[in-house]
Each structure stands twice: as structure tokens, then as C-alpha cells.
């Protein structure tokens, strides 16, 4: 019996092993964490993945490039539009298609709306992780407004599939600009409520400040990107460093903090919502006339070679790597998903904190499980 315990390798005797998940309210999906506890203190976290593995990368090898778009929606479903964009940009880059400004700007606006709604849901569920159930409803109330805009323009609320190689599936709805402006006006008024309810709360500060510190060195060596990495001071915003779509023509700040604790991972997202609204502000009135898609061949065949494109999703850097042999199907597709990499750091920063802190840290990394397993 003693040897058996040793063989598993994760726990010593006298440690209290708990299975957190795959069904658990705070793992946000089917993530399974095996915790070794000493009292309330977490000694080791071992994530067990694969509960929602659908083999998206393998499936991509047998379908065309237009079809891959629809699979990418299902990875990080809160950044569905941005995932689509990554594949489209990669295909367009490979085919050397020139994309008109109209498409670029609409894509950027949609990406930023996606980012806002993703961070709204983050705020909502983070509040719930910490026990403040009211946050959830406040967050979802505002998110509905973005989803309504999506519904009008894309025909779908969450899994939008609005991009296609060469442009967009269809033109924007005539109401689009008006609705987006209304939303910005509405949300600018509502965002201070978020601060009143959570950011400024004493209990919330006590629960998050100084918890789960991630140093800059660790953030870089683990490859933690997105708001989680930027909270540690890791300047990793792809929109800034390798501008794609219309990001080269807008002015915005990269939100950087140096503390790297749970609070600043949270706060970076709140600030990013403001920056996203600024970006949309600059673009919404400047959508030029023109076609909504470039005429492409019905069957897209990428020239032989390897292609890589990265974009900034709401959670970090998404890389799409395609190897083509000149056929209509790719030979190999690899997604560098931000959530999988961000999850790797969990054990490092959550160790020696309490269970409640683990929940807060996990919440602040803002993990989407289908993106981890793909």
C-alpha cells in the first residue's frame, strides 16, 4: 500500500488528496485538478486534462480551410471571433490576398467587442468565484447588449463564425454602427458600477492583493500571455508588437502592471475593457464603403509551405500554425492556445496558498477549458 502511494508520485502520506472537478462550480468547465492539501493549504495542484478533447487539430487535417473557421469557434468560445480571424489572416497571408480597409476595420471592431464581452463574463464569474453572486448578474446584463449586436450582424450570439478567408461572411447590419455607439455610451456608465461592487470592496482587496504572485521572469519562462502576463509586466500584446488588421492605425495603451498578483490580473482586464472601448471609438465612424469580402476561389489551396499567424485573444496569444502541401486540406494544424499555456503556471503560483486562494487564482487566469483541451 505504501509503495502504491509512492508510485503515484504526486502525494506523500499525511497529505489530503482532493479531486476538484471535473464537475465543480469553480473550474468553469470540465477541468480536473488533483489537490494535495495540508489542512487548508494547497501543497500541490495537478491539472488533469482531456475531458473535453475533441481532436480539433486532427479534424482540421481532413477538412477545407473554410471549414476550419467553424472549428476554431469551439476552442475559446468567448473569443470566437478572434479565433476565426487568426485562421483567416493566416490563409490570407499565405495566398497573399490584399484585404480592403473596410474588412480590416470591421474585423477590428468585432474583435474588440468580443474582448469586451469576454472580460465582462470574466468579471461576472470571478465575482462568483469569490462568493459575490450578484456580480454574475451584473456582468451578464451588460454582456447581453454585446451579444445582441452580434446577433444582428452575424446571426449568432456567441459562436459567431463571422470571418471567412478573404473577408466576412456577410455585410454588417445597417444598425450596426448605431447599436455599437449606444452600447459604448451605456457601458461607459455601467463600468464604474463594476468598481463599486468589486474593485473597491475591502473583502475583495483582502482576498486578491498579494495572492498568487507571478514574477516577470516566471511569466516569460512559462509563456503566460494576455492580461495575466501583462499584469506581471510582460509586454506581450500582439496588437502592439505585430499589428494585424487595423490595429496599426489606432492609438491605445498596453495595460502593464508589475505586481503580478490576482488583483492586478483582474484589474488589467477592467482596464482593457476601457482600452477596447477607446479603440472602437476611433474606428466606428471611419468604416469606409466597399465590398465586405474579396472574391476568392471556391476551393482554397495554400501553396506548399509553413505558415504562422498570431493574434491577441481575450486571454492571450493565439498562434495558428499551418503546414500545407498544396492540397485543399492542410497537412498539419497546430493551435498555440493561450489557456493551455496559462494553466501551466497554476501549480507554480497557487502552491502554499489556501483552497479559497486557489479558486481566486484560477478565476483570475480566466481559463476556458475547451481551449485547453481543443
Amino acid at each position, binding site marked *: 500500500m505504501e509503495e502504491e502511494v509512492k508510485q503515484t508520485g504526486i502525494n506523500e502520506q499525511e497529505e489530503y488528496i482532493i479531486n476538484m472537478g471535473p464537475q465543480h462550480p469553480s473550474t468553469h468547465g470540465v477541468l480536473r485538478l488533483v489537490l494535495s492539501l495540508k489542512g487548508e493549504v494547497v501543497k500541490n495542484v495537478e491539472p488533469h486534462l482531456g475531458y473535453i478533447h475533441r481532436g480539433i487539430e486532427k479534424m482540421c487535417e481532413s477538412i477545407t480551410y473554410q471549414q476550419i473557421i467553424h472549428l476554431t469557434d469551439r476552442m475559446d468560445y468567448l473569443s470566437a471571433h478572434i479565433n476565426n480571424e487568426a485562421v483567416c489572416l493566416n490563409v490570407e497571408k499565405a495566398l497573399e490576398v490584399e484585404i480592403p480597409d473596410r474588412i480590416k476595420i470591421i474585423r477590428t471592431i468585432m474583435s474588440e467587442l468580443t474582448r469586451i464581452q469576454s472580460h465582462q463574463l470574466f468579471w461576472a464569474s470571478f465575482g462568483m468565484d469569490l462568493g459575490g453572486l450578484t456580480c454574475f448578474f451584473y456582468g451578464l446584463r451588460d454582456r447581453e447588449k454585446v451579444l445582441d449586436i452580434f446577433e444582428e450582424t452575424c446571426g449568432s450570439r456567441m459562436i459567431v463564425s463571422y470571418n471567412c478567408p478573404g473577408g466576412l461572411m456577410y455585410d454588417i447590419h445597417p444598425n450596426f454602427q448605431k447599436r455599437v455607439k449606444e452600447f459604448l455610451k451605456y457601458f461607459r456608465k455601467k463600468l464604474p458600477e463594476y468598481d463599486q461592487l468589486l474593485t473597491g470592496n475591502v473583502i475583495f482587496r483582502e*482576498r486578491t492583493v498579494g495572492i498568487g504572485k507571478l514574477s516577470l521572469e516566471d511569466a516569460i519562462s512559462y509563456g503566460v500571455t494576455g492580461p495575466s502576463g501583462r499584469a506581471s509586466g510582460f509586454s506581450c500584446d500582439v496588437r502592439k508588437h505585430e499589428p494585424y488588421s487595423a490595429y496599426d492605425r489606432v492609438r491605445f495603451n498596453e495595460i502593464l502592471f508589475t505586481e503580478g498578483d490576482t488583483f492586478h490580473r483582474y484589474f488589467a482586464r477592467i482596464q482593457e475593457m476601457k482600452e477596447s472601448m477607446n479603440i472602437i471609438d476611433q474606428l466606428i465612424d471611419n468604416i469606409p464603403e466597399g465590398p465586405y469580402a474579396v472574391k476568392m476561389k471556391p476551393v482554397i489551396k495554400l501553396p506548399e509551405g509553413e505558415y504562422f499567424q498570431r493574434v491577441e485573444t481575450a486571454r492571450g496569444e493565439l498562434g495558428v500554425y499551418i503546414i500545407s502541401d498544396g492540397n485543399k486540406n492542410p497537412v498539419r494544424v497546430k493551435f498555440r492556445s493561450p489557456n493551455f499555456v496559462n494553466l501551466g503556471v497554476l501549480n507554480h503560483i497557487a502552491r502554499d496558498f489556501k483552497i479559497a486562494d486557489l479558486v481566486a487564482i484560477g478565476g483570475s487566469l480566466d481559463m476556458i477549458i475547451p481551449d485547453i483541451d481543443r
Partner: protein
Amino acid sequence: MNEGKVFSLYDFTALTKWIDTGLHHAMSPFWAVITELLIIGVLILIFYALIGLFLVYAERKVCAFMQNRLGPNRVGPFGLFQTIADLLKLLFVELVPIKNADKFLFNLAPFIVIIASFMAIAAIPFAKGLHAIDLNIGVFYVMAVSAMGVIGILLAGWSSNNKYSLIGAMRSGAQIVSYELSVGLALITVVILAGSMQLSVIVEAQRDGWFIFKGHIPAFIAFILFLISSTAETNRGPFDLAEAESELTAGYHTEYSGIKFAFFFLAEFMNMFIVASIAATVFLGGWMPLHFGAWAAGFNHVMDFIPPFIWYIVKTFFVIWLMMWFKWTFPRLRIDQLLTLEWKYLLPFNLVNVLVMAFIVLMGWHF
């Protein structure tokens, strides 16, 4: 004595005396006492169930309005019968047997929890002459009895054979034992002012002004401290660490289903009610109407016509509403922060507060 006349309108002592003598005439003293016990038991049981059902409904409505939604609104007018429908469902739902659970303790635990809250109700004065038992150590009795509930919670966590339950129960044990002190000291502050532990005497002493106004700042501080620590003692948010949905799924009652779960659920709400009624009785004058000094005689007279039971219920629900308000606003504390709050802040503060109150009473500075 105009005032006294109005009060006698709503005095239940005459009614209870009349029933008592009537029973004693009809049967032997032994059977009379048994009958009285039965009547009181049944009445309290009905009251308990009604209040429990209403509280569940109230909580759902209050939290719904705080969260921009409507809450239950399908079953009956304004969804009033929703909780009754839920209770019926819980009555008929299957009791899932747990493997390797300590069957006896597992079944015993919900009863201990519910009996503890049931017993505490007996000592609460709802109106003049309307309480089951008027102990001369009423405050002490209520505290002692309501503290018994923690045994049930610990047993539930231990016997469930579930690791989450055990963590929840251990948290709950540490929490309730610590906050018991603060609750006690906050009540002692008022006991010093009233000079009695008998709840009816405490209420009677507030005839010309509630203690929260009478007792200067210390009484007000004691009220706030009592509110905080009693929320913690009843395992409600932001101190609901024993359940901590996002951490421990459901804490100590993870493995309970059906009516046994309903017992825990109901007991939690009733504990809230008991705590709120003690707060109302001790700080807000219990069933006493709102009175100002002699300068507002007309106002005082009008207030006298509102039945004391209504006064009591309104005050209790005001306190309950306060507790719901901060449950649905604040995030949850962590276990070490919870204990730090009690031992490093509330307890010393409370001790100083008791001293200040004793000094004020000694000098006769109170109103």
C-alpha cells in the same frame, strides 16, 4: 394611565391565563401540563414552518431584486407558493444512500441542527405574554441552545464520508466557536444596561426608548458587532465558508438529499430568523412600539395602537433584510481572514465596548 390601557388591549397574558385555568379545571394537573405542552409545541411547529417557508421566498425575492431579475413569479400570485412547491418536491425526492457513511450519525445530524433552532424559538417573546417560556436567563439560554447546532454540522461533515464535507464542517466548527464569543459579549453589553438576562424584562426596560438609542454609542456599536458576528454564526454570506459553493461545492451538506437537506436548509433560515429576533428584542425594543420622549405624546399614543406582534415582526424582518443585503453584496472571506477578523478585531473591540458600557451604567450617563 392611558398608556397602560392601550397596552392591555394587546396583552396576551389574560388569554394564556384563561386557557391555563380552564385546562386545570377540566383535568388533573399532570394532563393539563401535557396538553399545554402539546398546544405550544404544535403552535411553534406551525409558526416555524410558516416563517421558514416565507423566509426562503423572501430571500429569493430580495436577492432577485438586488440582481436585476424578478425571482420566483410562476407558482401562485407573485410566486408565493414557489417555496411550498419546492418543499413538496423535497419531501418526495429520493434519499440517496451514501456508501461507507456512518449511517447513524448521518441521519442524526440534520435533526440536531433543526432541534437546536427549534428550541431557541421557545424563549423569544413575540408579544406581551406571548412566549413559550420566560426563563430568567433567557439570553444565556438562547445562546447556549443555538450554539448546539454546530454539533450537527460537525457530525454531518464527519459522517458523510466526503472530503469536501469534512473541510466544510471543520471550517464551520472553527467559525462558530470563535464568533460565539463576539455574539455573547455584544449581548452582555445590553445585559449590563438592562440589568437582567430575562428577555421579557429586557423588553420591558425599553418601554420609554429602545436600547440602541438609550445606550449611547456603545449600544450602537454592540448592535453592529452583533449583526456581524451573528451573521457569521449562522453561516451566512459573506461568512458562508462552511458551504462555500465555489470552493467546496456545498460544504457540509454536499451528500444530503431530499428532506434531510431540507432540514439543513430550513434550519439555516430559521437561525437567521432567531438571530434577527434576538437583535430586534435586545436592541430594537422587541414588541415595544416606537416611542419618543414626553414631548411627542400624541405620536407615542398613535404608535401604541399598532399591535406589538406587528412591531416585533417588522423589526425582525428589518434586521433580516440587512443580513440579506450584505449577503448579496459582499464576496466571501477566507478562513484565516475570518478568524483574524474575530480574534484580532471584533473580540478586543467588544471587550472595550463592554467596559465602556459598564462605566456609563455605573456613572448613570445613559438615558
